């Protein structure tokens, strides 16, 4: 297996779980963009470019999964906080179900028990 294949596979895997990661991080608490990026940066294995989060948030907002609101910050200009909507909560639960099914199936498969 060459490095290019590994890089591509890892990138696709991270891309696939990014939406779920964003929703999960917002379920913990509402966050402003930079805070969300910092939180995602703490996830082992989820190495992303910081900018990736913003188009994703924009699409999620359009899809009604998250909403945003401006709030004054004692540390400077007003901050835009993102938080989950009910639809986002439902989407996250659905994603988690799919994720667990996939992980269980893959675990069995890679163990050779399927």
């Amino acid at each position, binding site marked *: 297996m060459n490095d290019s294949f590994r890089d591509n596979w890892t990138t696709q895997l991270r891309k696939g779980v990014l939406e779920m990661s964003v929703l999960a991080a917002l379920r913990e608490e509402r966050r402003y963009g930079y805070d969300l990026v910092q939180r995602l940066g703490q996830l082992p294995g989820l190495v992303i470019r910081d900018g990736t989060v913003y188009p994703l948030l924009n*699409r999620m907002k359009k899809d009604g999964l998250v909403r945003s609101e401006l709030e004054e910050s004692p540390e400077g200009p007003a901050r835009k906080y993102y938080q989950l909507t009910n639809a986002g909560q439902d989407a996250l639960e659905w994603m988690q179900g799919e994720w667990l099914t996939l992980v269980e199936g893959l675990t069995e498969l890679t163990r050779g028990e399927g």
Partner: protein
Amino acid sequence: MDRLTPRARALLRDYLDDMRSLMTAGDLDAEEVEEDIRDHVLAATAEYQEPVDADVVAQVLRELGPPSRWLSRDDSPAPDPASEGKRRFDGLRMMAGAVFVATVVGLAVFPWVGPLALLVAWALARATMAHAREAGRSLGPLNQWLIYPPLVLVALAALALILVGPIRILMAVSLPLPRWATLAAGLAAWYGMVALVGRLFPSIPRLVLFPVFSPRSGDRP
């Protein structure tokens, strides 16, 4: 963005121009993503001494990654004039533009239908602010310049009405009292009533007198 040195500002501007050129006709709200990126840069540089130097901003932009890498292909079709126009004049800007036009019309024909046009401009300005708030977006300096004139004019007119409006009526009233006493008693009653209304319904003075008499909190009165 006054927190940044001119060189740092230029760096950020180039980055945002690059980003915008790549997302002229996608499913993204370019202006909102741009705001998010600006907010990100401000938050990431918050702990640095002002003005923040270009080197610091360059590092933040490196961590954000080149826009070409984090914008998917769906967001980057070749730009065409129609989509470019649509991008630049999004809903918020169009509303702010309509406010400005109504204000100019109102001032141009002031003695006649001008006040009505100014009231329309005022209502549009409030709607624009509500739209921005609901969308979780800041108005931005240009939109503020476009929508604030009717807000200020109506607030000043309302303030003048509140302060001196009843004087003319009181001057015409004839009571068996000295004129100064009639005036003082009438004004005291009027101001008391205004204070009571303001106390019972604080949203009314906030609505009518913004931005003349309202604690300014960014774009959100």
